[in-house]
């Protein structure tokens, strides 16, 4: 039996508000299923579960603001029997060592046969059906006198109670959302600047060849199949990250752990302000049309503030592109616990020397911010060189 807890959806998340359950007790779930929606400073995040099993009980109420680690649900492994009557109290000599505080929910004694364990966070004994109906009807379980075994609230108790006008969790107003998002960005960036010894390397890359190749490709296909130049940059960055391990991974209490795959964080500017960097898993292995489709989908969901928990936490390197118009270059701040961030300036036509001649070429400045605890200029240099090389052979991307 496992406890499904409020996940940390970023280095600086302290709590989240449960806004929706997408499963009910008795449902079979498998790893990767979306089971709940949690409102965070970065919008509503769809929470995925990381084990297979059966939902035994939902242990958190809709609307509750819960700290990271708080129990949300109890999961039975496939084939595992639900907990029955509490085990007989241990007799004999008292244990010499005080047992560590039990994990909430897993070991709370069941009130009685057929009733779920009492969720310690709520402290109210209630059957799953009663709990669900109470949630639907807006009835406060704590205000009910249970008629079930041990005073537990059962379905009938809820049915016979008139719903009170409980305030439903109201969606965060845009202005509030913006304030919260700014707080989240501030917290992550302050931590980054405090903890990560950044250094930056920049390289101007001639992207005329890549741009010409893409224009010819896009001219032959309808709009829905066109690819953006930014997608080529993302692919090139993902390939470079796969080759230069010191730029791809996480830095934690045990130091740097290189990631076995490249989950490319894509910084998405939200209209009206704010920034979010969900990840595309194994971006280095995606063909350009697939990567383009993944980016389209991700940007749409990021703008709608509807991302998944894995996308919020799995990024191993983030890329931030300034887009078609804008500044020449940007030195970005690394998104912890990652160890590098690639910022790409707006492409500009500039005089460039090709085979001894000054010619107009489309250039873009790639600036890598890297973590000096993990890498030196040599690796950063190699990373940028890999990108340059990749972009000179766009058909191979």
């Amino acid at each position: 039996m496992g406890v499904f807890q409020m996940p940390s959806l970023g280095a600086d998340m302290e709590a989240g508000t449960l806004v929706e359950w997408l499963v009910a007790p008795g449902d079979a779930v498998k790893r990767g299923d979306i089971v709940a929606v949690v409102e965070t400073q970065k919008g509503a995040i769809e929470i995925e579960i990381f084990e297979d099993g059966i939902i035994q009980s939902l242990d958190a109420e809709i609307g509750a603001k819960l700290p990271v680690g708080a129990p949300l649900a109890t999961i039975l492994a496939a084939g595992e029997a639900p907990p029955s009557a509490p085990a007989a109290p241990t007799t004999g000599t008292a244990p010499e060592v005080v047992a560590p505080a039990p994990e909430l929910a897993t070991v709370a004694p069941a009130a009685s046969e057929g009733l779920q364990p009492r969720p310690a966070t709520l402290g109210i004994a209630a059957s799953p059906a009663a709990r669900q109906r109470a949630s639907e009807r807006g009835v406060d379980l704590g205000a009910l006198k249970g008629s079930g075994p041990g005073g537990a609230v059962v379905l009938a108790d809820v049915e016979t109670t008139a719903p009170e006008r409980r305030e439903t969790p109201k969606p965060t107003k845009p202005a509030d959302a913006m304030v919260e998002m700014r707080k989240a960005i501030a917290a992550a960036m302050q931590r980054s600047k405090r903890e990560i010894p950044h250094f930056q390397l920049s390289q101007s890359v001639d992207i005329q060849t890549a741009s010409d190749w893409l224009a010819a490709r896009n001219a032959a296909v309808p709009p829905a199949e066109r690819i953006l130049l930014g997608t080529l940059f993302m692919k090139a960055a993902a390939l470079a990250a796969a080759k230069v391990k010191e730029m791809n991974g996480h830095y934690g209490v045990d130091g740097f752990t290189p990631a076995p795959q490249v989950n490319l964080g894509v910084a998405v500017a939200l209209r009206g302000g704010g920034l979010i960097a969900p990840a595309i898993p194994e971006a280095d292995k995606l063909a350009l049309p697939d990567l383009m489709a993944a980016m389209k989908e991700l940007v749409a969901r990021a703008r709608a503030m509807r991302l998944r928990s894995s996308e919020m936490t799995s990024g191993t390197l983030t890329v931030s592109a300034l887009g078609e118009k804008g500044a020449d270059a940007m030195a970005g701040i690394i998104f912890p616990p990652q160890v590098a961030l690639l910022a790409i300036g707006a492409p500009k036509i500039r005089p460039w020397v090709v085979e001894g001649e000054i010619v107009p070429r489309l250039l873009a400045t790639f600036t890598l911010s890297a973590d000096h605890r993990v890498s030196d200029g040599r690796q950063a240099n190699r990373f940028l060189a890999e990108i340059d090389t990749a972009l000179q052979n766009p058909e191979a991307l």
Partner: protein
Amino acid sequence: MTQDEARKVFLEELLKVAPDLESDEIGADDHIQDDLELDSMDVLNLVAALHARLGVDIPEQEYVEIATPALAAAYLSRRLAA
């Protein structure tokens, strides 16, 4: 399709791509990228939506022709008349 009709369709699709925009706040000469802050992904989505709805395939080098609602109305009605 008249310019007025084309302009209406353009604005409808623009608002689908950028739902936070208010239709009465969009000026005829507002630049969709410089003023309305669409990025290249938004522009591509808009071009794809116009293609799906009107059957007008706008090549990349002609994206500048739909840079403002006024330009787009003239361009789309011209393309549809051809």
